[in-house]
């Protein structure tokens, strides 16, 4: 760029350069604030156990809410010391994002965090409001050492038998003893690293763990009696990456791909030919981001193009579809004979699977919660519990057809 001899021109140039600098500096500051933001986000969903709803909040806490009294039983903040990026962001203790929905078993709540930690929280200990984790109550954290290197955990944890299986952003799959949090790994043996990063949850069938990757593979890992993982010969390879976590139904693995198809893969043959791909002809309008649910031989799959599909699980034939008009980010949920679907704009659709559903389905109920929804949700005894992106927990009564209560999950200042 030429600089002229003329002072007024130089001044004009300097002003324009200053403008450019301001724009670029603004971008820098925006990126700094994004890296070091106070609200960690995450899309952890809800799970219900013995009348208590467990949920990861948008401000980085695990919260237990009594569904009858609508009151807070306990909460546990997940904090991480971090070195943030940017100009003025120093080391600080920040709340951590939680993407995986808590899993509950035997009074222990298991949750994976974006700081790369897995926490086992005892409901009794948490009710007593202890500051630190109580080993005597069976609480633990993995890795134990705060300074141990770890990669973000985005996927839901898988609890099976006496083990917790963890997909990590470092591409590794870890098997932890659910009682102690110890890694089920022989000394000197590396963990199986399957991809550059794993943001999808594993699925288990008998003693085989199936893991899908963003680079288009499904791998099978054998689990021995001590919970140790080892590679197996089975694998499946596709041209496009897999967007969703695998779901297993009668030896068949169902999962969505970035090429806008839903795949059904034979869990015993593997290879590179799926049993079927849906839609049969041209791809869907967007990715199948959420895992499908399968019941009575029918797969119910929500797509980011807003359509909910009912597909014959054996053949891949479309039975019916329904347009929710907004992306379906989270998996449908079955409650008795009801199929519940929530789209990203927060509209809850309820379908009666016992009714006549042919070609174009008509929902039994349509209820709006007026909040964006990206988190998985749970349903029990006619109530659906949904965490909105506004960090509120909504209880939706299917019979009444409206929200019966709503709780702000944010900590009061």
């Amino acid at each position, binding site marked *: *760029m030429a600089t002229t001899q003329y002072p007024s021109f130089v001044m004009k140039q300097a002003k324009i350069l200053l403008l450019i600098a301001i724009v670029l500096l603004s971008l820098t500051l925006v990126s700094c604030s994004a890296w070091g933001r106070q609200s960690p986000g995450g899309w952890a969903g809800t799970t219900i156990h013995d009348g208590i709803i467990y949920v990861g909040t948008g401000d980085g806490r695990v919260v237990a809410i009594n569904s009858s009294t609508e009151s807070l039983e306990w909460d546990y903040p997940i904090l991480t010391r971090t070195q943030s990026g940017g100009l003025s962001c120093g080391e600080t203790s920040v709340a951590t994002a939680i993407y995986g929905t808590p899993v509950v078993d035997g009074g222990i709540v298991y949750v994976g965090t974006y700081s790369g930690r897995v926490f086992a929280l005892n409901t009794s200990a948490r009710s007593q409001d202890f500051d630190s984790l109580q080993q005597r109550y069976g609480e633990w954290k993995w890795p134990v050492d705060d300074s141990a290197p770890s990669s973000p955990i985005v996927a839901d944890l898988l609890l099976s038998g006496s083990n917790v299986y963890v997909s990590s952003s470092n591409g590794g799959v870890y098997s932890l003893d659910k009682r102690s949090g110890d890694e089920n790994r022989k000394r000197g043996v590396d963990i199986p690293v399957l991809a550059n990063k794993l943001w999808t949850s594993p699925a288990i069938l008998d003693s085989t763990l199936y893991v899908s990757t963003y680079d288009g593979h499904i791998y099978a890992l054998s689990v021995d009696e001590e919970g140790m993982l080892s590679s197996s010969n089975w694998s499946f390879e596709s041209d496009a990456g897999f967007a969703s976590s695998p779901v297993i139904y009668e030896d068949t693995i169902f999962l969505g791909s970035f090429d806008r198809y839903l795949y059904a893969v034979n869990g015993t043959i593997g290879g590179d030919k799926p049993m079927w791909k849906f839609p049969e002809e041209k*791809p869907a309008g967007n990715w199948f981001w959420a895992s499908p649910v399968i019941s009575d031989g029918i797969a119910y799959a929500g797509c980011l193009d807003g359509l909910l599909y009912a597909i014959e699980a054996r053949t891949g034939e479309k039975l019916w579809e329904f347009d929710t008009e907004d992306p379906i980010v989270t998996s449908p949920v079955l409650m008795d004979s009801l199929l519940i679907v929530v789209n990203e704009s927060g509209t809850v659709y309820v379908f009666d699977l016992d009714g006549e559903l042919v070609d174009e389905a008509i929902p039994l109920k349509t209820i709006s919660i007026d909040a964006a929804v990206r988190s998985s949700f749970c349903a029990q005894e006619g109530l659906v519990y949904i965490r909105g992106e506004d960090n509120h927990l909504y209880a939706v009564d299917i019979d009444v057809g409206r929200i019966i209560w709503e709780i702000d999950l944010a900590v009061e200042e």
Partner: protein
Amino acid sequence: MAVWYLIIANPILNVLVALTNLLGGSFGGAIIVLTIIVRLISWPLTKRQLNSTKAMQEMQPKIQELQKKYGKNQQKLQQEMMKLYKEAGINPLGCIWPMLVQLPIWIALYQAIMSALATTPESLLGLAQRLYSWDIVNQAIPLSSSFLWLDLGQPDPYFILAIIVGGTMWVQQKMTTAPTVDPRQQSTNRMMTLLMPLMFGFLTLMFPSGLALYWAVSNIIGIVTQYFVTGGWGYLKPRSPS
């Protein structure tokens, strides 16, 4: 904002992803090819700028004569120089436009890199709404951020790219900054020649290296085209102002 995404940000994002697929999954290669495409599109503006630079180089003896003649009368000097530029059909500010044209591309590219590399789960999900339904695009997702020693979604930790960006920008500036006899002007020129490379070198340390790669390649293309269009290294070679 919707217009911004429709017209600039989304096309750049999709072209980048499609190029990545064509180049066997190399996102860095796609950024380099995109840089070349952008430079080709902005070639008419660049050519005008280079011709202007060349004409200004050729006018240097006349400008220096004017400076000697009217050095003590700034107002008269300005008038005479304006007259000279007008006669030669040169707009001294014309050289700014290629840079300003590239500014929205930088912003869109920054957004595209952050979006395409999907460094957070939210950005991966957000990507779904911005990609076209082309097979070539969808089969490339998700992209690998590795290129040479760089993680294209993060700043270069070894400062190599900052040195390359700053260095190439300095060379480019130096090639086009005419010497002057006026001491005040000399110091302004010196400051301007240093300010931009330093600023961009610093920004390289702050921004994803994918964007810095665009700057570096763009500068190198700029130097090469400048060399061939203006016929040499311009004012980079030291010469006496008199």
